[in-house]
């Protein structure tokens, strides 16, 4: 109805502004060469923040972040997929236990975990980046398993049986039949795992032992020094932009994703 549309459509933009407001100053600061108080907009626009970003090793940190996040997604998706498909069909007491184990990382504060893990990492001499990836995979598994589980609940295993009857091997059936059908779910789980890796701070800080510098860590160290607002804003924009870009590319390639839950 006209009146209802009116009410809900005024609400929506207001809420939208609430959600976007904190991002506004970042946009302004990113291109501000000089912005002293109490100016409402920068007195001087420029790209000093951007060049400082490159000087400070920004690109390296972005690459590191990407590497770690992609690795987390690459490991979490197959692990959670196998777990979810076997859990969905099993109702035994053992499966409840397995479920509890898989979802337990959600109730463990990451700093609790990493304080206890870093001695092991040091003792066993595990390369810091690898240790970070593995820890993040463990933290991501509950979320990707959850996504995969709801997808498998709607999946009919008879598709794969049919493929086997037509001559495919077990692995072949997974690749030729399950993968295409479950693509959307795989992508959703991959995105979640990627984000967990991309946004992490404490795990990378502690387990990485100061040697793994991802974008959030670079930002954190820059924030303790004054006058870095501009470069921090640039880092912030990159932090937000890269996942969004990935999301946009994925949506573009699969237009049916538009109607999926992930695209709100």
């Amino acid at each position: 109805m006209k009146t209802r549309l009116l009410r809900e459509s005024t609400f929506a933009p207001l809420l939208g502004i609430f959600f976007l407001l904190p991002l506004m100053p970042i946009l302004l600061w990113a291109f501000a060469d000089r912005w002293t108080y109490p100016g409402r907009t920068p007195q001087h626009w420029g790209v000093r923040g951007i060049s400082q970003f490159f000087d400070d090793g920004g690109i390296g940190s972005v690459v590191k972040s990407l590497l770690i996040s992609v690795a987390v997604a690459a490991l979490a998706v197959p692990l959670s997929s196998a777990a979810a498909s076997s859990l969905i069909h099993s109702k035994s007491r053992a499966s409840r236990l397995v479920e509890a184990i898989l979802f337990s990382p959600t109730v463990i504060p990451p700093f609790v975990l990493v304080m206890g893990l870093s001695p092991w990492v040091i003792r066993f001499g595990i390369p810091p980046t690898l240790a970070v990836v593995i820890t993040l995979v463990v933290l991501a598994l509950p979320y990707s398993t959850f996504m995969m589980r709801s997808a498998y609940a709607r999946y009919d295993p008879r598709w794969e049986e049919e493929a086997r009857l037509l001559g495919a091997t077990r692995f072949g059936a997974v690749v030729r039949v399950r993968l295409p059908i479950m693509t959307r779910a795989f992508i959703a789980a991959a995105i979640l795992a990627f984000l967990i890796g991309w946004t992490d701070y404490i795990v990378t800080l502690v387990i990485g032992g100061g040697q793994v510098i991802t974008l959030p860590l670079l930002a954190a160290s820059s924030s303790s020094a004054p006058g870095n607002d501009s470069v921090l804003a640039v880092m912030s924009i990159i932090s937000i932009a890269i996942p969004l870009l990935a999301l946009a590319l994925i949506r573009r390639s699969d237009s049916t994703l538009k109607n999926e839950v992930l695209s709100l």
Partner: protein
Amino acid sequence: MKIAAEVRNLKYEYWPQKMTNPIDIDHLSVLAGETLVLFGPSGAGKTTILRLIAGLLTAKSGSITVGSQDVTGVPPHLRNIGLVFQEPLLFPFNSVIDNVGFAARIRGESRSKARRSALEFLQLVGLADLAQRDVRTLSGGQTQRVSLARSLAARPVVLLLDEPFSALDLDTRSEMQELLIRLREHLRLTMILVTHDQREAAILADCVVLISKGKVLQKGKFEDLYSKPCDHNVHRMMGGKNEVTGFTREGYFHSDLGIMSVPPGSNRDGPAVLLVRQESVLVASATPLVSREGSFLGRVVENRLIGARAEIVAKVHDTFIRAEVAQSNAPRVGDEVLLHIPLDSRWTVSLASATKAHENSNQSYSLVGEAI
């Protein structure tokens, strides 16, 4: 008699653009205490019209009146209508009685008061003993009854029903139709019901509106749509199968079937199509003393069982006539038979409208004939 609800110049287009015809209704009205049936094939737009009346969709233009209130542009919760959907969908987080009492709680009544009046409505539909049940344990018929009680408990001016019984088996469906008739009398209900089931329309309707492709084809009593269809499409939608082309002149219809008079009220002179219900065609074995007006000889080319009766197709010169006969003395294929169409079963419409309707429809004209 008061008009309970009225619709004028209602126009609506689907968004996003689907391959369906937009809604374009000149005028529809239902009198207080009356049951209006919207009848027609799937996809005709009947559900859309109901949703427009309920306010769940916004019309592009036109006016809707419910009771004495102009409800155009008014949100659904203020329109005083009730809507029983085809899929009843009871609230899963409420028990049966709380479902029925939902409207009362919305109005601000206390839980106990709402439950008391809900119980009355549950008694009306015969389910008072299921009041505390979890809705997930109900059968299809029970769910639909609770849904009915729930909508009635909101005390609407007009109750809209969208194919409410089509998902139920035949027995349950008859039970529900009888329940509706009883409720209608008891509560003096005004209803607009959508169905594609001809029997249901015949049983429940005071007035039938035939909808096709978003437009009204014909309005009136069921018998009128049945035996006096305004064109070839209406005739087909009501299940009529005989269409004979020819022309009328001075009250007589000329065709392959000979010359026969047509009742007053049929079309004027000119090219015409004779529409005859297959149940009205009388069949007897051929005798030489023929020559009554409206009688003609034909040869049976097909004989098909349809339940307890049989449908035969007889070839008369270049025309095919279908007739429904009792199974026991049905003629066999190849027999020559005498067919007679009584006067009051003859109805002609002008060919222009028939041709236009024919061009617009996708059905082929004489299916059996082509096959042979």
